């Protein structure tokens, strides 16, 4: 869990902004506060009936008034109950509406934000913004603020009623309230950091456990069970120590609040009793006094929980609005035009790119891909291969230079029309937790069953899909069937094929699969590249041999370019990679005789 940032100057503004989300629910909210006033009014009036009952009904032996008052009390309680129901329901509806709107807005914003944003953010963080932080805001705009106002109004109303009966006793009885509020707040302030520490420690404990379980094989292979137990015990004991501290704090303070509230009761019995004896107060008023005090204790005690929650909601709001206010780095220009269907002529003109404006990963990249050509990218991890392919669908914008497709500058066309004509198939495949069919049709939800099956066949996926429990309707992912890496990859290829893109981006690696599956995936990839401009992160000799242009990258620059045979002659680096890594692949019995090399075939 991230440490809670200190409250920033903008927090008050953020709190106000939270309430602006209540605007669509202004009628409900008005209803909530009106019913609240009515409920408080009833709460202040009802003890007066008890006073009349005791003084007049019982003391004055007026049975009629007694019966009337009891009936009135019951009637008022019903009324109060009905009001309470509507107040609760309206407040809940409005605040759940706020949460719903905020979550939708966050989701929409995350869809809009570009890759550079998602590179920087962690899934867990974003989830906690959208869930816990929004929940805190919801609590604030719903019950928290309502209770705050209610407590204030109730305090004023009660004080008025008490003073009307006996100013001095009112002073004595209410005198404990500031102390109660203060202790409740002080306890909240003290307990919160500990409760957070306990939560964090539990998270540490859970992580330890999770790591141990996921790494069970490694733990056993290295015979480190004892060390693991020791580490877990440490975290576990620390959790216990923190929890015991928290428990002590709670044990001392929670009953203390009751004790303080009870001091008021002692005053009422003692001083109130004295007043009755002196004839300055009636017994009914004494009973009413006590009832009033009882009604006040809960709302005031609750302030101890609500006020810190408001502060926390402020911090939460800061974090949520930070996401909502982020500007997507890549977005449609105001005058963007749709990219017409392209032939696939891609040009990089002096393109440089730096992540977060500092870390240069590409420098002055210039090359050209003619329609239908295969461009192979070769280089070590971090040489800039992935960045080049990420620039083509405009996941990022270059920091310098420009990229054109069929002469259109990418920054002058709409994102949707551009990405519609590009497909990407990478080794690490993301499938969604839905049916196989929907996964394949992901880019074209309107595709017919025939088209989907055709794509699957070309991707060598049709056969295994048919063997799944429900064929194309089989659910995949957590709730459904677990697919192997090779199966996922072929579904991703089918997904890309169905989109029928003009431009294709892929890597030719196969997830760790056996030889048979690998063979099928390579067949599928070949099918996919046919007739499209393709950019391939190359790891295979076959790809390099067949490429129209190989770009050898090192530290963000193109250090060599050409075809396979040209590069063998001209590039030392390429020759070295070839000698160490690629040539061993070549020493197969007689690959070239089995299938002719594309370039040889051309000659």
């Amino acid at each position, binding site marked *: 869990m991230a440490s809670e940032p200190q409250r920033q100057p903008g927090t008050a503004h953020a709190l106000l902004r939270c309430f602006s989300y209540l605007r669509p629910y202004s009628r409900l909210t008005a209803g909530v506060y009106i019913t609240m006033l009515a409920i408080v009014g009833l709460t202040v009036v009802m003890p007066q009936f008890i006073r009349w009952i005791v003084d007049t*009904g*019982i003391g004055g032996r007026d049975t009629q008034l*007694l019966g009337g008052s*009891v009936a009135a009390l*019951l009637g008022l*309680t019903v009324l109060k109950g009905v009001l309470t129901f509507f107040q*609760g*329901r309206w407040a809940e509806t409005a605040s759940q509406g706020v*949460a719903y709107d905020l979550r939708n807005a966050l989701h929409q914003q995350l*869809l809009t934000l570009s*890759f550079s944003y*998602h590179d920087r953010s962690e899934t867990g963080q*974003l*989830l906690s913004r959208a869930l816990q932080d929004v929940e805190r805001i919801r609590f604030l705009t719903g019950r928290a603020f309502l209770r705050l106002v209610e407590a204030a109004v109730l305090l004023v109303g009660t004080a008025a009623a008490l003073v009307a009966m006996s100013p001095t006793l009112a002073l004595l009885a209410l005198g404990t309230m500031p102390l109660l509020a203060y202790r409740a707040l002080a306890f909240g302030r003290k307990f919160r950091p500990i409760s957070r520490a306990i939560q964090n420690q*539990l998270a540490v404990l859970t992580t330890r456990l999770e*790591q141990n*379980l*996921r790494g*069970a*094989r490694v733990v056993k292979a*290295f*015979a480190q*069970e004892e060390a693991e137990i020791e580490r877990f015990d440490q975290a*576990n004991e620390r959790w*216990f120590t923190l*929890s*015991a501290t928290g428990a002590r704090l709670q*044990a001392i303070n929670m*009953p203390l609040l009751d004790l303080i509230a009870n001091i008021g*009761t*002692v005053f009422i*019995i*003692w001083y109130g*009793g004295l007043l*009755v*004896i002196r004839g300055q107060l009636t017994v009914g008023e004494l*009973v009413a006094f006590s*009832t009033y005090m*009882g009604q006040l204790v809960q709302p005031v005690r609750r302030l101890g929980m609500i006020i810190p929650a408001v502060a926390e909601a402020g911090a939460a709001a800061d974090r949520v609005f930070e996401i909502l206010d982020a500007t997507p780095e890549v977005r449609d220009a105001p005058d963007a035009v749709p990219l017409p269907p392209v032939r696939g002529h891609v040009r990089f003109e002096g393109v440089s790119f730096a992540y977060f404006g500092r870390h240069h990963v590409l420098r002055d990249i210039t090359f050209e891909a003619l329609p239908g050509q295969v461009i192979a990218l070769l280089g070590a*991890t971090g040489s800039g291969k992935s960045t080049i392919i990420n620039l083509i669908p405009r*996941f990022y914008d270059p920091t310098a230079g420009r990229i054109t497709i069929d002469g259109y500058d990418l920054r002058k066309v709409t994102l*949707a029309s551009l*990405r519609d004509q590009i497909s*990407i198939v990478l080794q690490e495949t993301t499938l969604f937790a839905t049916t196989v069919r929907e996964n394949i049709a992901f*880019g074209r939800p309107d595709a017919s069953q025939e088209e989907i099956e055709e794509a699957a066949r070309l991707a060598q996926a049709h056969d295994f899909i048919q063997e799944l429990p429900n064929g194309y309707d089989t659910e995949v*992912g957590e709730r459904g069937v677990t697919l*192997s890496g090779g199966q996922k990859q072929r579904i991703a290829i089918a*997904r890309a094929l169905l989109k029928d893109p003009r431009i294709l981006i892929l890597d030719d690696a*196969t997830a*760790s699969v056996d*030889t048979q599956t690998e063979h099928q995936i390579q067949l599928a990839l*070949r099918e996919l590249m046919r007739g499209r401009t393709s950019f391939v*992160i190359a*790891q295979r*000799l*076959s790809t390099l041999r067949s490429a129209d242009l190989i770009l050898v990258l090192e530290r963000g620059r193109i250090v060599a370019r050409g075809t396979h045979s040209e590069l063998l002659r001209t590039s030392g680096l390429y020759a070295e990679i070839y000698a*160490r890594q690629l040539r061993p692949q*070549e020493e*197969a*019995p007689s690959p070239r005789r089995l299938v002719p090399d594309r370039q040889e075939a051309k000659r």
Partner: protein
Amino acid sequence: MSFSIGTSGADMGPRGALHRFGDQSEGRAFDRQIITRLLAFLRPHWPRMLAALVLMLIASGLTLATPYLVKVAIDQHIVRGEVDGLTTIALLTAATFVGIYLASAGQRYLLAWVGQRVLATLRGQLFRHLQALSLGYHDRNIVGVTISRVINDVAVINDLLSQGLIVLIGDTLVLVGIVVVMLSMSPGLALLTFLVLPLMLLVTWLFARRARVAFRQTRARVAAVVGDLAEDISGMRVIQAFAQEGVSQERFDRVNSANRDAHIQAMSLSFIYLPTVEFLGMLATGIVLWFGGQAVAADELTLGVLVAFMAYVTRFFQPIQELSQLYTTMQAAMAGGERVLQLLDTEPQVQDRPGAREMPPIVGRVELDHVSFAYDRAEHQSAGAPRAPEQNGNRAAPEDAQHTDGHRATDHPYYVLHDVSLVIEPGQTVALVGPTGAGKTTIVNLIARFYEVSEGAVRIDGIDVRDVTQRSLRRQMGLVSQDPFLFSGTVADNIRFGRPDAPDSAIEEVARLANAHQFIMDLPDGYATEVLEGAVNLSIGQRQLISIARAMLADPRILILDEATASVDSVTEALIQDALARLLAGRTAIVIAHRLSTIREADLICVVRGGRIVERGTHEELLRRGGVYRGLYERQFVDDGAA
């Protein structure tokens, strides 16, 4: 502490009410066997528990006394005008409140302390047990499920053990106490007031049932929101690449609004329940006022009794509400307890024999002598985690099965290795090749004794692995896999994993040998760089290099390589091959290979198919033979050579 009216429900507030009633588990609330075994965990703490009980009784008794003191104050002193007596009563009341404070503070602390102590002990015990369980358990059980046993189920048990039992005793006594006091003060009025009780019970019962369902619903909806959002965030690149933002937003909107509606629905229930409880409280008060008031007017009852009755009535409902929550707590605790005990009862499949000796320093001769292996159905089920039969079958086989296309294991015992014999001489490298699911991983799992052979024997340096302790055996083995698991902690911590006492200099040395030093130094904090969850800040190649360094430092005699170079770029692959060559030198190694180009130098290549070794020999021998191996080899190079 007042004789207020109609606030009995205010203590919890709607949210509290839901949480209290809304526990997930349904089922029996009482199982003597489970309770007995769970109570055993409390035994070491019985003096504290007893003290807590005594304190609770004191607090409850004093709580019952205060309305009585008020009655005395009114009847004996206020009405009669006795100022001195009134002061005494006021002081007595104050003393009572202080006594309540001390007793309840002590009781709360003791109970919480015991509860958390038991919780920590139980978690420690579970963790120890998990370390003892063999890999079979870990292969079969989803990590999240086991975590939930250790974290959540244990907490639920604690709720019952530390709070629940005392609440049960305390509340029951308070309830009986109130009934007795009221009956003794005014039997007639008391009986009339008790008429409200059945209504209260009915309302609470009705509510608790519905709230459980409604609250379970809200939890499912929240989970759906989390699930959808998490998936969208991790698949964000695909969504944007395919320009499917609209569809994604629509889907999220659906789960999001379902979540909103479920919450409003559930909360509305408590907005009905709480006012109803308040009304019943007022009804009881009304009975007291109406009948009691007339009695007072007729001088059949004192005013003090009437006021005391009003106070007792409000206090009446609390224990009933708490007892109804307790029922839910008990249901949850029984279910949780059963699962936790089941986990504790799971026997490790692989155990050290009594009197197992230490494995002497290994020379490195590995022998599989007519080894067969079958997964046993009974052992699957002892694992305890309830799961779909389909998943169970899928997971039943070791890792190999997870990659298998369309492969599904059946639930009855089935053999995955048949009569495998193999001798590896010290220092040799043996490669296992073959399709997924053939049994390659099973062979190495048996050599490391992660599983026990069904028939035959595995011997190292002539010693049956079953005759030595697991620890002494595995200390001399190392493992490098294609997707190596790194723990959170620093890079140095990870390299040090097998030898926690290794000095920094040794770590750097092995990192150099493993070709990892250079990239580690390029990391933001060098060796002190934290490995993030899932090691996302390292590439697969870097993870592999670190795991090679980790194995080097452990200096094993026998090495298991699970194809360490599956999916990295050519340059990194060269680094890895180079590092592996150094790691393998002078050690016995068993390599599970997918890419045939990497194993040509192996001393022996075994082709595994259908749980048998179908071909064995060196690379050249096997190529000459023209069998399965040659077929595999040619196909791989067709892919590489063709366009």
